[in-house]
């Protein structure tokens, strides 16, 4: 079945070794034999992993930029750029680039004129109307040059699988899989994408993103998370919603997007991991040829703002028509901190599975909640962030009842050691997670890219196993005591608006 039995055997060996605590140095070694890191002269890092189980490959490109890089006025722009990265370029999706370029410049000046009037102290409605009509005319003109056979159309026709991208608070990811004979297509499209992005249909796409924001508001959890984030952080941009504020989505421009791209999409800020049926000897020349065309430029400036220590407990209460929801979070260090494995242990012991403390107490025994969870790294992982727990109260149960029971479990982590079984269960499951991630090209590509971004070395994915093995019960108590303090806490809860329950009436189905 496999064309490369040797490589497959090596992988099997590696993972077998992973499951036995004795030989961690060697696991890494066997994985290293199939992994090639190649950094281009312009700074773009490529990591290639040979996994020739089937004639396919997947890739994940991580740009080290997210909503944390935004400032008021351009919130949502990192995500907006991600959308624009599907619009093609001069060679992809244009009938006549020279004419289109001109038309796009005309759209942008029409928009700038409209914007100036709209945001002036006393906008003249007639003038706004006229400028709006002008913009529509320019957009009409620009759309005539669009070749519908653009970026998505090519990939769809060529059998790409899982074509998508995501933006979070500190990273933007682009990914899909292709049959392995289409490596050159990948190289052409993905290099064109970041060589010279084209902001065609920018303002139509901005409308789409506004709809995306509205859609998140059709779910009460989306609204509660917005309020929670903005309360928990007072200075760091993690306070901003990833999708952006509506007013910014209605006013940032293609010029803003170009500036954002120039700053944050320097090749040195990009990492691409390819996993699958690829051979470095033939792939690297192709990568050099296409991605090497992008000129080097200085990387982005570091983020300056550091979240100051929290001095007061914060409590947010949102009234709406929905059933109650409970959420609380505590500030913790960035995920590259040596204690991250301890936070992961706390996370796992607190809420993973039916043996977890929150599940057993709140769901099984007290029946106060029907769903509990925790998460170590909200809303991002690169900068100091939050450890959060959430609980969905059972029918008729209040947030306060859930809070009391959850707090009891959190206190117990501070005052009593966890059991040997709990600690062992955490370690066994974390190792198995890594093993399971290896079954899928894209999952593996994503994990390696993320570790290389955060730690500067993909090997940290494996070294983490050593770190988690060293977590002790004393570590857990120490970190719990450092973290779970009243003054370090933000609570957010959604409560049912009193009026909403009065309309309840009998209905037969």
């Amino acid at each position, binding site marked *: 079945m496999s064309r490369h039995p040797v490589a*497959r055997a090596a992988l099997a060996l590696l993972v*077998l070794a992973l499951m036995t605590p004795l030989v961690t140095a060697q696991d890494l070694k066997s994985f290293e034999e199939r992994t090639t890191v190649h950094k281009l002269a312009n700074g773009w890092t490529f990591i290639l992993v040979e996994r020739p189980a089937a004639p396919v490959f997947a890739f994940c490109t991580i740009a080290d930029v997210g909503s944390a890089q935004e400032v008021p006025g351009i919130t949502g722009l990192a995500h907006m750029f991600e959308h624009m990265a*599907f619009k093609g370029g001069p060679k992809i999706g244009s009938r006549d680039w020279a004419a289109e370029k001109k038309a796009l410049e005309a759209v942008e000046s029409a928009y700038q004129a409209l914007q100036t009037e709209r945001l002036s102290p006393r906008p003249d409605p007639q003038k706004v109307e006229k400028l709006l009509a002008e913009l529509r005319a320019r957009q009409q003109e620009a759309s005539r040059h669009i070749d519908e056979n653009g970026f998505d159309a090519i990939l769809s*026709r060529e059998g790409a699988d899982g074509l998508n991208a995501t933006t979070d608070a500190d990273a933007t990811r682009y990914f899909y899989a292709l049959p392995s004979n289409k490596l050159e297509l990948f190289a052409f499209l993905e290099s064109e994408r970041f060589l010279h992005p084209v902001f065609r249909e920018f303002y139509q796409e901005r409308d789409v993103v506004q709809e995306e924001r509205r859609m998140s508001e*059709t779910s009460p959890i989306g609204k509660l998370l917005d309020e929670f984030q903005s309360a928990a952080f007072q200075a760091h941009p993690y306070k901003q919603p990833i999708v952006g504020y509506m007013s910014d989505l209605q006013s940032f421009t293609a010029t803003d997007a170009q500036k954002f791209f120039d700053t944050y999409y320097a090749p040195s800020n990009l990492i691409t991991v390819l996993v699958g049926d690829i051979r470095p000897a*033939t792939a690297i020349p192709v990568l050099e040829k296409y991605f090497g065309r992008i000129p080097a430029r200085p990387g982005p400036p570091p983020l300056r703002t550091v979240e100051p220590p929290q001095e007061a407990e914060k409590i947010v209460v949102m009234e709406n028509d929905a059933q109650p929801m409970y959420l609380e979070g505590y500030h913790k260090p960035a995920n590259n901190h040596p204690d991250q494995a301890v936070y992961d242990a706390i996370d796992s012991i607190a809420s993973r599975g039916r*043996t977890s403390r929150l599940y057993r107490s709140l769901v099984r025994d007290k029946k106060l909640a029907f769903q509990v969870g925790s998460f170590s790294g909200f809303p991002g992982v690169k900068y100091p962030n939050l450890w959060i727990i959430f609980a969905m109260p059972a029918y008729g149960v209040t947030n306060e009842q859930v809070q009391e029971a959850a707090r009891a479990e959190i206190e117990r982590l501070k005052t009593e050691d966890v059991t040997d079984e709990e600690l062992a269960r955490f370690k066994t499951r974390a190792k198995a997670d890594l093993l399971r991630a290896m079954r899928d090209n894209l999952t593996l590509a994503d994990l390696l890219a993320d570790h290389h971004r955060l730690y500067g070395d993909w090997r940290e994915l494996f070294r983490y196993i050593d770190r988690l093995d060293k977590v002790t019960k004393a570590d857990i108590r120490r970190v719990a005591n450092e973290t779970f303090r009243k003054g370090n806490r933000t609570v957010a809860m959604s409560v049912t608006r009193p009026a909403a329950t009065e309309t309840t009436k009998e209905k037969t189905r």
Partner: protein
Amino acid sequence: MTRLMTRLMRHALPLLLTILALPAAAQVDRVDDIRFPPLARFDIPQPQRIELENGMVVLLLEDHELPMVEATALVRAGSGYDPADKIGLAELAGRVLRSGGTERMNGDQLDEWLESRAAGIEVAVAEDAARVTLNSLKKDFPEALRIYADVLRRPAFDAQKLEVERNRAIANVSRQNDDLFPILFREFQEIIYGPESPYGWTETYATLGAIRREDAVAWHRQMFHPDRTILGLVGDFSSEEAVRWVREAFGDWPRGTGTKTAAPAWRDRVTPGIYYAEKGDIPQSGIIMGHLGVRRDHPDYYALEVVNQVLGNNSVSRLFSNIRTKKGLAYAVAGQVGTAWDHPGMAMVFMTTKVETTGAGIEALLEEIRNLKARPPSEAEVEAAKRGLLDSFIFRVDAPRRVLGQQLAAELHGYPRDLLSRYRAGIEAVTPAQVRDAAARHLRPEEFAILVVGPNQGQDKPLTTFGKVTPVDITLPQPPERLRPKSGH
């Protein structure tokens, strides 16, 4: 193919392959200039099929890449068989099947046994079947399989655990109107399949309150038999040893008594028109429209795969390109003629859009459907769609787990065992005329039920513009007295 041609192919092809595989001398400037070397040959892995004496069908597929094994049992015990006064029985009983433990190991012990080995047994109930899965490391698998067999054959249905799961189900009912999308799809299914069809049902406080432990026990006694079960194993084992394990765990499971479970019924025809459910606290309207689709074995299946590509299955489809990319009316917009294994799926298109463009959204969706007739998919559109389906087919079969999953479903519903390997030929044979005819046959806008869920103020056009409006009441009924929250905990 003539013999000469075959010989030519055999000898010339490897040479050609070598030449094409050499790195191109210069970078291309246009996508069309890229020459793809032929894709390496890949054979779809074929599971071994055996049938035990008690009627249980077993599919085995070795995959030695990682030291793990997965088992999946599809049992004909889906929610489609729920009694009308106990809607939610299969889902609830299915959850307790796992959480309630077995005769030999109570639920808590089972949780600990599995989680300390990074293993899992889970149950997911769909309309057609209960899917009971096991995954574990290779070294734990033989013992895990025995426990898994106990879950399937000898569940304890612990009364305490039943209450935990009922609690969850009741809470979910109380939250049925909190999010837009679940309302949209739930109410639309009821409109399409009819309120008397299991495909249109939603659990209520009353139906969940009526379920007793005896019902779960009876559900298991009636449905869980080897001759109603398809079992699949994939992972790091030798088929020989796996057959032995399976025989030990399931060989003495007695065949069922053949009690018939009536197949779910549904309405043949929807009542066309506008349906409206009010949800006031959101900034968008959800719009969904359509009628019944077809079963997967319909002769138009392959043509419909192409229709769906053209219409709304991806980011270059007409719906996405016209309504999202060009008009900026929606973030979420999609549609397809849906197929299901054992009953007609739903032919539907949907979107969410700001309240102020509700009318424009309805019009845009209808226009795309009408345009399928007025501007039928061109030869180029059909070609691009077919090529995309053919070239991405590898991703349906590139992992043994995925192949086994599809084979299990085909086996459960009595579809040909070579269904997967027929797919490519099926798509290749589709012509533009077939695509046009299939689109016209299976998307009939004059028969559409159109459901809108959202605020009742601020729309650009009254809904009556589109026809007579039937209100849909989504108000939750009061729960029966004993399920009501007690005050002062």
